[in-house]
């Protein structure tokens, strides 16, 4: 009997019941709470706001692109349907503003030329090491699919860009880091990139940090999901088809099984 009790006790101990476990760590795989925003591209019928994407592209180009690459995008993408909808002429101009290394030419030398719509977005640094040297050891991540690479997506990007604040009194900051309410751990190497009025808007939108953050978050959602509008449109047709088809199948099924029920009802041994 005693040995049985002892075995049971050992068994329970082996489960290692947590002693103080009611005080749950808030950081058990979950970062700070990210507030959901209203986006024009919310499913199921959302669309990107072209003007917003164009403004977002400006914020990206003037601010983010100084440190962050976006290697999966090409200038031509900016004119494709479901995107910011720049005109072919505008895209040529935007592309030509970048100097791209091409080659080798007939003499075997690499050369610089103005960008074309088919070129990928030019990266600000030659390689990751070069990026780290300039940025105090931190590597600015590529932004192509950033809106899918963080929990919360565009909500998170917006929260991060508007989340810079003074650290709480007792919070210990590492040298060279900034306090951010949305960033996991609250210490981010990126300095606050947005200031009110730093980029003039021409379409009447107020040039505020809040609008910059919102616009560039929408733009990053588009770069991460350039086929989002097409996906919703095709989805709507498929859903309508399937729901109608399900109705037809339901009544067909009832009609077919009714034969069986009739047979049971009238069956004579």
């Amino acid at each position, binding site marked *: 009997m005693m040995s049985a009790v002892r075995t049971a006790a050992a068994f329970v101990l*082996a*489960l*290692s*019941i*947590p002693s103080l*476990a009611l005080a*749950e*760590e808030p950081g*058990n*795989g979950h970062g700070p709470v990210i507030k959901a925003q209203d986006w024009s591209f919310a*499913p*199921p019928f959302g669309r990107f706001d072209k003007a917003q994407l164009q403004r977002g592209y400006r914020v990206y180009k003037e601010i983010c692109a100084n440190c962050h690459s976006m290697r*999966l995008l090409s200038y031509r*993408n900016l004119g494709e349907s479901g995107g910011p909808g720049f005109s072919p002429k505008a895209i040529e101009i935007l592309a030509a503003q970048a100097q791209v290394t091409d080659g080798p030419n007939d003499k075997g030398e690499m050369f610089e030329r103005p960008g074309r719509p088919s070129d990928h977005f030019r990266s600000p640094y030659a390689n990751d090491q070069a990026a780290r040297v300039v940025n105090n050891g931190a590597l600015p*991540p*590529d932004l*192509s*699919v950033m809106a*899918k*690479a*963080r*929990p919360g*997506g565009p909500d998170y990007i917006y929260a991060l860009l508007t989340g810079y604040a003074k650290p709480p009194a007792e919070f210990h900051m590492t040298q060279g880091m900034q306090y951010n309410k949305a960033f*996991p751990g609250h210490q981010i190497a990126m300095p606050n990139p947005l200031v009110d009025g730093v980029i003039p808007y021409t379409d009447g939108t107020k040039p505020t940090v809040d609008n910059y953050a919102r616009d560039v978050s929408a733009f990053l959602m588009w770069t*991460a999901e*350039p*086929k989002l509008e*097409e*996906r*919703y449109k*095709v*989805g*709507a047709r*498929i*859903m309508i088809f*399937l*729901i109608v*088809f*399900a109705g037809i*199948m*339901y009544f*067909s*099924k009832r009609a*077919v*099984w009714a034969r*069986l*029920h009739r047979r*049971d*009802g*009238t*069956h*004579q*041994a």
Partner: protein
Amino acid sequence: MSHPSTYTPSTGIERWFDARMPIPRMMHDQFLVFPTPRNLNYWWTFGGILTFMLAVQMVTGIVLAMHYVPTADGAFDSVEKIMRDVNWGWLLRYAHAVGASMFFLAVYIHTFRGLYYGSYKAPREILWILGVLILLLMIATAFMGYSLVWGQMSFWAVTVITNLFSSLDALIPGLGTSLVEWIWGGFSVGGPTLNRLYALHYLLPFVIAGVVILHIWALHVPGNNNPTGVDVKSAKDTIPFHPYYTIKDGFALVLFLILFAGLLFYAPNFLGHPDNYIPANPLQTPPHIVPEWYFLPFYAILRAIPNKLFGVIGLIGGIGVLFFVPWLDTSRIRSTSYRPIYKWFFWLFVVNCLALGYLGSQAPDGWYLFFGRVCTIYYFGFFLVLMPILGFIERPKKLPGSITQSVLGPQGSHPAEAPPHVAQEPAREGAA
């Protein structure tokens, strides 16, 4: 197979085939007139759904393979290229990724259905074992497929799972390490690993298709089990597969596709992990490495066991124990509907599996680890203790005399007195 052939070739070309390779006869006997219990509910439609999903995965997968680059430098970008520059590439890739989740959803429902209705009991043991084999192959295939994206979660999942083999070092020092390096094709997960995972990911679905054919063969010898678990006793207990079950399976498939399409078009990344949109980086470990949702219960079992080797044994045993279910269950009857005690433990087992799934997604400390251990004990206790014991001590409820009686009531054999079926029928089907 289990019933005499009723096929009569009516045209010249049918007679020509029938004398040489009687495929039309097989199709007629096995898929058109195949005698199927008349009381199968909607839980029985998942076999057809699974066949459809296997086809979806193979068709989308083959086209994806035409555009995918299985190298450490090219994999992540080629997936994004498929999403951006290949015609309908986003649809193919999301259909394949969400399709994997839907495939597992269906296979788990199918397995729980078999477990609930005792579909593994004699004479269907081989049918069940082939099914568990398919599940194992699916797990291997899905794991390898997930690795091909070569994002952070892909890379670190491969690292964690392949490293499990190093636990064999506890048995023979050096054995596990050598095995792991052999699997990797190097001293860490890298390009060679990705390339072989890709080759196997392309191969295994065809193996699955082969075992599926055996699974259907093994089904067509004893025929379907049914919700009562009572054997087919007379021709009146059965109806031809076509049109009754083709239409019923078809309706269920369309409903299933609505769920599939809803996720595919409106939340394709809902079941994925954001970290897998970060390219693989061998120098940076993600804070929490978690597998796809369909592996979480097994992951919870692995982490609940403190010893690495026993953890791996628990992980493999979680599936492996299913192979022995036909002999672990000592009950005389099949269907859980007629087992008043076992029924409670069965549904507790379902809840337990869902709980393990949740616990697998959380960091293994504090109460998460504690409940992970409790649930792991129940998981194995259910199969190894409850199943054998309950079969002996439980008094099952009275079974219906036949399938027909269960549908039409005791008067079913005297149809003249049978009540109108309009009232009965929706209730029975709605129960599914």
